[in-house]
């Protein structure tokens, strides 16, 4: 019981981070059909930004984190404007290649500025041990879970209620119609990229807090692929649930079956689910219009 709870909380922590990262990925795909292979690097950049403002500049952490989020939002918009907008109308494969190039570029920039040497992240999130129901868990994990859920709830509300969020859904549904409603598709793409960068930064900070600041962060960002394929490339609830499922599966297999296998099992589950539901758990079947 004790072990189970411990594994579950650790799985939920990773799952929450996966969900955040997947949310950004889904947003970009949903609104612009772009598969963003640089999502993991957005996590990396976000973590290093926070590291820069808090550890290197020595700012108080709330200010440092806020600045990191702002810079990330700006970076998201910049990437959309400079890199993706010129590609509108180009074949999907070119766009994918460009996001792969973007991921190398971002990693190179990070290595160039901060060197690949792993750094210690200033732990401003308390990591004292907390006892719940006989299990001992680190408080930073609970923080990560709570924060992710709050963010996910906030973004869900944003999509359902705000006129910007509804405009994003409209663009996802029918771009021409959205344009004829006076919705700026450019603006929607820019918002999607900045939200993706911001959520990735939050995820990156949480990871950095647990595993330190290093290139490993972007590797974990790669986990976004099983998550979104599981949940459905275009489903926001799918991203959240898919993140949790993969996070928990990893933790449980790691704890009960053995390390190593936990890297494999999520993919096995993935393949099984895709055999039954090729569009993912919550994805929409693509209806070809004649």
């Amino acid at each position: 019981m004790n072990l189970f709870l411990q594994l579950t909380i650790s799985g939920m922590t990773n799952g929450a981070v996966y969900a955040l990262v997947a949310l950004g990925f889904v947003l970009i795909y949903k609104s612009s059909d772009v598969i963003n292979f640089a999502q993991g690097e957005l996590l990396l950049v976000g973590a290093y930004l926070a590291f820069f403002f808090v550890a290197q500049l020595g700012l108080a952490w709330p200010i440092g984190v806020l600045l990191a989020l702002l810079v990330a939002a700006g970076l998201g918009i910049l990437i959309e404007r400079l890199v993706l907008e010129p590609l509108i109308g180009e074949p999907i494969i070119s766009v994918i290649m460009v996001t792969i190039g973007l991921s190398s570029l971002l990693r190179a920039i990070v290595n160039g500025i901060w060197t690949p040497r792993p750094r210690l992240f200033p732990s401003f999130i308390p990591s004292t041990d907390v006892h719940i129901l006989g299990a001992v868990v680190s408080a930073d994990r609970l923080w990560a879970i709570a924060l992710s859920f709050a963010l996910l709830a906030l973004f869900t509300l944003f999509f359902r209620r705000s006129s910007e969020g509804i405009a994003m859904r409209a663009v996802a549904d029918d771009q021409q119609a959205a344009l004829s409603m006076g919705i700026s598709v450019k603006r929607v793409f820019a918002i999607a990229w900045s939200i993706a960068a911001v959520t990735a930064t939050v995820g990156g900070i949480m990871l950095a807090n647990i595993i330190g600041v290093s290139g490993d962060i972007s590797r974990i960002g790669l986990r976004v692929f099983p998550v979104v394929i599981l949940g459905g490339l275009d489903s926001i609830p799918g991203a959240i649930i898919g993140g949790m499922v993969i996070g928990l599966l990893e933790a449980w297999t790691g704890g009960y079956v053995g390390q190593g296998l936990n890297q494999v099992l999520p993919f096995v589950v993935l393949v099984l689910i895709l055999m039954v539901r090729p569009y993912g758990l919550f994805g929409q079947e693509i209806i070809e219009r004649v």
Partner: protein
Amino acid sequence: MTTAPSFATVSQLAPGEPQLVVEKITLSFGGVTALAGVSLDVRQGEIRAVIGPNGAGKTSLLNSISGLYRPQQGRILFHNDQEYNLLERRPDQIARLGVARSFQNIELFRHMTVLDNLMLGRHIHMKSNVLDCGLYWGRAQKEEVRHRQVVEEIIDFLEIEAIRKKPVGTLSYGLQKRVELGRALALEPAILLLDEPMAGMNVEEKEDMARFILDINEERGVTIVLIEHDMGVVMDISDRIAVLDFGRKIGDGTPDEVRANPEVIKAYLGEDHG
């Protein structure tokens, strides 16, 4: 008698003044010339039909006006409080000037309800702000109530109360066309571009649609540009008709003038025999 509409046209022109002026536009796709030097004027308050055989360039003309296509030559001027060159603007900016449209192949937000679709038609009238994001508080709430009023009036007017909560993907073709008209109306446009609003409808549905178009035009003063294949309807409700064939304008005038135009007769006969 219908009650005076509270959603009214935003046009600042007097009836009969030139509202939309298309000047010698040429539009090609690779080797295909969809429009070859087409000129057309639309006056405030009229119903202006555009007819022509399949592939004549009617939809291309509408897409050029609404900014989805970008002609390589010519000008498109829109008059309201001032003169706007539409060729310099993006489609969403053109919509904000008061130019609304419907599509030949229905382009509704399929996964949303009728009500959501119409509310999206209000987008340009919403004060959008990512931060205060329309959460049901204070000013945002008051604003939402006002938009709901406009939308409910349109629902009443188009007689679609019964389906307001339905996802549009589940509706019949005729009803979808009606919802699409409603969504365009929700923009409170000065001019409404309708691409075959009656295609695929039965006689009764066509009559309803013709009545809605006439009401929108007469009671709300909205200028209408209408593409339609049904000659009976076109001759009946249009003030002036332009005829396109192979990307050229081959006739323009009142229904009687167009009916008597030998080139138009030839184009239509040619189509029948081809």
